């Protein structure tokens, strides 16, 4: 049987996975490995890009072996990746010249004005869709080049290449032949013009980024090249940022379709079709997907940096649980949060607050509080943060949501899903493939090579796997929301007080 599956490489913040899917969008095989999180200083987060490429070299053959398939069975390969994470490497040796600066890294906070040569933030927002924040890769790249005169000189001589993880992986998969990215990734650099979908020379100048080190922006969906490493002959046919991929994987192809992913962070995206919709509520305007010969599709995005990362912090830093899933077990030892609220503003508060100086707080502690209450407050914080960005999106869209489609690893947490339904007061729906990031990359890759004829077929693959409905009344909801909002104000106030 020839070309029986579609493959996805999902290069995420904490792990890298390779998954194979069949015609019905069912997972056939998955291989996964975590990589190191490097925290050299407070606020800094780094990855080793070579380690990540090493994992991809192992995982692709392993996923095929587990399914009893070979590279000749893969109709198309889609790459999806943590966005904004910045890699710089040597064009000749292929070795990174600095640790990859991860999207969560806040080293550029406080210097953003200078790193953008004091360009008007409103103008930046107009051109790129991005409010000025530490997330985008452009300022991270400039920070790297500014931090080392030798790097700067080599970059100016054209010896260094820049890319987000998609670019780094495609470059390695093709044996260093192809230096490309797609608009969903490029739209997160602060260097791309949302309308032309090309690098903006004025922004490059303002951020002191040599054009020679930038990848070529190619459509998200379309055949790029054939792999050389670690297995030859696999067509690479899609590249999408992870959150745009999950929007695609949820079959959210029409304007108004939205999804919310619960992973390391919480990522709410709404398809706005060919229109560039400007947010009045602090959301990001971004590219949802692009395809050769078709107008680009845009999206509104509200992202919260800390969700799964908060649970992970409870595990690694507090030793409250042995595995992320156990947070639910611990939270279920109590009936409510006992008046305890956690605001996980580890790196400031972003959408919809945009308060970069805010810091995390735990409030409402009494002698009665147990670790169960804190676990419960942690899950509730994830739900409340999602509500805040959903409310902002509803304000922008002008219509209330009827239900919320969710995905991501944390949707296995039934208590979180129930709490989400409680605070939103709309049904929360998990589709049958919680791994919609990988599925979306596979869908895009499969469409590009004709494995699936059209989007309609993919829509038919979408099925409801679970649904949660609110179990609390409006009085309880309003009271809890008021307390959450008060806690957020405290986190913001603390940040201001700290800076004087």
């Amino acid at each position, binding site marked *: 049987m020839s070309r029986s599956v579609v493959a996805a490489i999902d290069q995420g913040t904490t792990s890298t996975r390779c998954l194979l899917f069949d015609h019905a969008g*069912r*997972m056939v095989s998955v291989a996964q490995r975590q990589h190191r999180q490097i925290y050299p200083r407070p606020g800094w987060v780094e990855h080793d890009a070579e380690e990540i490429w090493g994992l991809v070299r192992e995982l692709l053959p392993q996923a095929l072996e587990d399914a009893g398939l070979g590279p000749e069975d893969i109709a198309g390969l889609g790459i999806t990746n943590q966005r904004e994470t910045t890699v710089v490497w040597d064009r000749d040796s292929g070795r990174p010249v600095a640790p990859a600066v991860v999207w969560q890294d806040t080293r550029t906070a406080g210097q953003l004005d200078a790193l953008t040569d004091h360009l008007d933030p409103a103008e930046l927002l107009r051109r790129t869709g991005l409010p000025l924040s530490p997330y985008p890769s452009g300022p991270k790249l400039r920070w790297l080049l500014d931090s080392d005169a030798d790097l700067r000189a080599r970059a100016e001589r054209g010896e260094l290449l820049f890319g987000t993880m998609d670019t780094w992986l495609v470059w390695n998969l093709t044996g260093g032949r192809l230096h490309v990215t797609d608009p969903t990734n490029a739209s997160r650099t602060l260097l791309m013009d949302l309308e032309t979908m090309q690098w903006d020379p004025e922004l490059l100048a303002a951020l002191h980024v040599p054009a020679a080190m930038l990848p070529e922006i190619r459509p998200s969906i379309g055949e790029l090249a054939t792999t050389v490493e670690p297995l030859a002959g696999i067509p690479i046919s899609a590249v999408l940022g992870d959150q745009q991929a999950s929007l695609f994987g949820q079959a959210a192809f029409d304007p108004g379709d939205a999804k919310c992913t619960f992973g390391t962070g919480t990522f709410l995206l709404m398809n706005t079709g060919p229109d560039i919709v400007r947010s009045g509520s602090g959301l990001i305007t971004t590219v949802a997907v692009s395809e050769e010969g078709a107008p680009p599709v845009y999206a509104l995005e509200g992202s919260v940096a800390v969700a799964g990362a908060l649970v992970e912090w409870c595990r690694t830093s507090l030793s409250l649980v042995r595995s992320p*899933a156990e947070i639910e077990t611990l939270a279920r030892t109590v009936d409510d949060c006992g008046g305890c609220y956690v605001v996980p503003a580890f790196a400031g508060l972003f959408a919809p607050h945009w308060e970069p100086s805010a810091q995390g707080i735990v409030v409402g502690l009494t002698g009665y509080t147990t670790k169960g209450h804190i676990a419960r407050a942690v899950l509730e914080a994830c739900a409340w943060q999602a509500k805040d960005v959903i409310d902002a999106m509803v304000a922008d869209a002008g219509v209330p949501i009827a239900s919320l489609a969710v995905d991501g690893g944390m949707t296995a*947490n039934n208590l979180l899903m129930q709490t989400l339904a409680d605070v939103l007061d709309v049904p929360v729906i998990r589709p049958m493939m*919680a791994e919609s990031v990988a599925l979306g990359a596979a869908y895009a890759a499969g469409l590009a090579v004709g494995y699936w004829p059209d989007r309609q077929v993919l829509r038919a693959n979408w*099925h409801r796997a679970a649904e949660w409905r609110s179990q609390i009344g409006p009085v309880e909801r309003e009271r809890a929301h008021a307390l959450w909002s008060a806690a957020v104000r405290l986190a913001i106030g603390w940040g201001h007080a700290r800076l004087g």
Partner: protein
Amino acid sequence: MPGRVQSVERAAAILQILAVEQEPVSLAHLAGALDLAKTTVHGLVQTLRDVGFVDQDAESGCYSVGADLLHLGAAPLDRNELRARAINWTDALAGHTHEAALVARYEAGEALVVHHVFRPDASVQSLQTGSARPLHATALGKAILAHDPRAARTINDGALESHTYRTVVDPPRLHRELADVRDTGWAASVEEWRPGLASIAAPVRDRSGYVVAAVGIEGPVDSICDPRQRPRAALAEHVVDAARAVSRELGHGRRG
């Protein structure tokens, strides 16, 4: 120094003997090895069996070290961890079979549903997670009963409740059926719990091979079974594949 309790010493000696033997050991062999009266050893070993430290083979009556004892030192698998590990494969199981997929594990005399994936159609369904299934009347329950000595003990004492006219309430018949489950690797229930409802399930094993849960499908008899009301072999194959995949996720059969 307080005096030693003789029966505890003897019980420990029994476990030591059973632990070094490759094959299950007869009562006579145990009594001979300890140089004690058979009646004395019988009382001790039966108590050890009742608390789960010793297993007794139903046919030969011979004894071996209980699976519970092997797990005494290991932390039990967290219920929510089990769901997190199973979620992708139960999605795929529901996708392949077009039926609702469930994961259950033994808790307090029942098969507790820890994960539920809706049947992939447009029908209105509600989450079954947190509900319980009777061990002897459902496929999930039987897949657990056939392998988990703690669960099996709960059906040894007391009558088997009849849920429908097809519920197996005769213990010898149930034991024969459980032996079949161990042979084929999967369990089925056709209208034994609820009229019109059938289910197929298979055991999920951890790294050591211990059965920690069951994964299965549940749906209308007409779709789970062929016209002669026998579970469809193709569906059973998907269930067994899913159980194997979840077991692998838990470390079973992994190298290293």
